[in-house]
């Protein structure tokens, strides 16, 4: 990076002289010797080449599948090369949103554009600058809905299990009761929902497409929940928003999503991106940073942080959230990814993912023992029975360089995206026949 500032021994000596100090250690005299680290148990320095060889050796132990038919919360989409090119620019390459934000107009503009795109996708009015991941976004959304007389949260059993765990962790520490709504045929059981809805329920969290890939009837859930005075948090896959009805059309109040499919590599599970958008009436409860557009004293377009008065750098322990910074670079990736594809491109990715998944389901059903567990509409994932022990199938396919669907109980959750070609799917089906 061009702005990397070196300092030589000589310069260090100059600076020490200026400070009237002898050695660098003199800078740390205020730290008691008992808590100072004497030495680290790490090897001596190595050359770049030696380090490169060693790290390559270690990373070659990873299994990197060429063919992936698994989702379960993280999705293998193609990332246009412009995404890496743009976000690698040193002006953007920092994990943090800036501490003196208004001086960094470029970063603020990039966040503003990200927020605009997320609002366009969800159809809702306001977006924050993102949070850590999808599960955190859903949990923070639950906390947004806390009112004096309404605090309980209903959550559909069909959400990603990781989301449920994070939600429970968040809510436990705030004394918020989390009640799960049962599933019937792998989707929300409306009878159970009706039974559990009452005027103490602050909100209902539903994921669509849900953990099993099925499209939930969010519109009906919204109507039912609103009639009891509660609000709806729709958790979704942002790629699906390009094709299916968005949160506004389904009348959800908050839309959260795991943003990884928008240009983030699978990368062993992170860093990912938590997308949060909401209706205008809830904007004062939206946690984290929000960038707004305004004009400066010369009437020129510029960007500022807005609605910050409730955040922790001002309201300390009474802040509405503990979100202060996040991997803003991930939001930047999502923004560049959306811009690179454009609305038509994004829709094409969604269409191809859905149609490849439906082709995969059809081909698998030609093999005896693979049956769809639900007849409901799915997006790009679907749960199937498995003719043999699912772990055996996964192991068998792994030997052929294929990551099979996710084993769930005795079943298996398959996934396809736009990267899984017809040829690759046909090949998978042939190999499965061999393994069986």
């Amino acid at each position, binding site marked *: 990076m061009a702005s990397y500032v070196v300092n030589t021994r000589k310069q260090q000596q100059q600076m020490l002289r200026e400070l009237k100090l002898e050695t660098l250690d003199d800078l740390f005299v205020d730290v008691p010797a008992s808590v100072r680290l004497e030495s680290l148990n790490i090897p001596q320095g190595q050359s770049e080449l030696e380090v490169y060889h060693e790290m390559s050796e270690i990373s070659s132990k990873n299994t990197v599948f060429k063919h992936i038919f698994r989702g379960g919360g993280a999705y293998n989409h193609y990332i246009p090369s412009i995404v890496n090119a743009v976000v690698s620019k040193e002006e953007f390459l920092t994990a943090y949103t800036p501490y003196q934000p208004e001086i960094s107009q470029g970063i603020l503009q990039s966040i503003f554009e990200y927020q605009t795109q997320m609002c366009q996708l969800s159809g809702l009015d306001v977006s924050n600058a993102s949070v850590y991941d999808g599960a955190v976004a859903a949990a923070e959304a639950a906390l947004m809905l806390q009112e*004096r*007389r309404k605090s309980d949260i209903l959550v559909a059993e069909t959400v990603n299990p990781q989301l449920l765990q994070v939600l429970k962790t968040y809510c436990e520490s705030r004394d918020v009761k989390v009640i799960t709504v049962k599933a019937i045929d792998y989707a929300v059981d409306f009878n159970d929902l009706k039974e559990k809805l009452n005027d103490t329920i602050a909100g209902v969290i539903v994921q669509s497409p849900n953990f099993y890939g099925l499209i939930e009837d969010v519109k009906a859930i919204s109507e039912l929940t609103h009639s009891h005075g509660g609000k709806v948090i729709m958790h979704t896959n942002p790629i699906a928003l390009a094709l299916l009805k968005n949160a506004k059309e389904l009348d959800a109040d908050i839309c959260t999503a795991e943003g990884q499919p928008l240009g983030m590599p699978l990368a062993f599970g992170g860093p990912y991106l938590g997308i949060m958008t909401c209706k205008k009436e809830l904007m*004062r409860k939206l946690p984290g940073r929000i960038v707004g557009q305004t004009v400066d004293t010369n009437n020129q377009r510029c960007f500022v942080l807005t609605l910050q*008065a*409730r955040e922790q750098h*001002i*309201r300390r322990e*009474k802040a509405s959230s503990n979100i202060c910074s996040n991997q803003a670079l991930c939001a930047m990736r999502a923004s560049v990814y959306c811009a690179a594809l454009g609305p038509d491109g994004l829709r094409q990715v969604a269409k191809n993912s859905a149609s490849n998944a439906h082709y995969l389901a059809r081909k698998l059903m030609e093999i005896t023992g693979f049956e769809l567990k639900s007849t409901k509409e799915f997006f790009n994932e679907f749960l199937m029975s498995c003719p043999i022990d699912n772990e055996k199938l996964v192991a068998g396919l792994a030997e052929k360089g294929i990551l099979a669907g996710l084993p769930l109980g005795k079943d298996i959750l398959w996934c396809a995206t736009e990267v899984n070609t017809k040829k690759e799917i046909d090949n998978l089906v042939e190999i499965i026949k061999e393994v069986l």
Partner: protein
Amino acid sequence: MFNYPKKLMYTETHEWVKKEGDIYVVGISDYAQDALGDIVFVNLPEVDDEVFVQEPFGDVESVKAVSDLYSPVSGVICAVNEDLLDNPALLNEDPYRNWLIKVEDVSDTEEFLDAESYQQFCESQG
């Protein structure tokens, strides 16, 4: 400088209180609205909510900060000034006419300051 109506009682957290029969009317002082700056949002409780002496019952948001509103009495809210929800700037315009809440069934109150003591207190805050 600031206006400290003689007929009102005050708290060190800058609320004013007026007793109307058994009902206590609560607002924020002229000093408070000036210190806050332009008020953009008021978050108030609902009728029938309980409030407790020196505990927050809501908050006011100005362009620079969100500040808690502390209840000068313990009791049950019988009215909320909903005009403020639509037009929070009313608090800047006339903090004494634009009350926040009315409380009934009052079981406890804090030790109020009269206008003169409150003015002295504010002036000592610098």
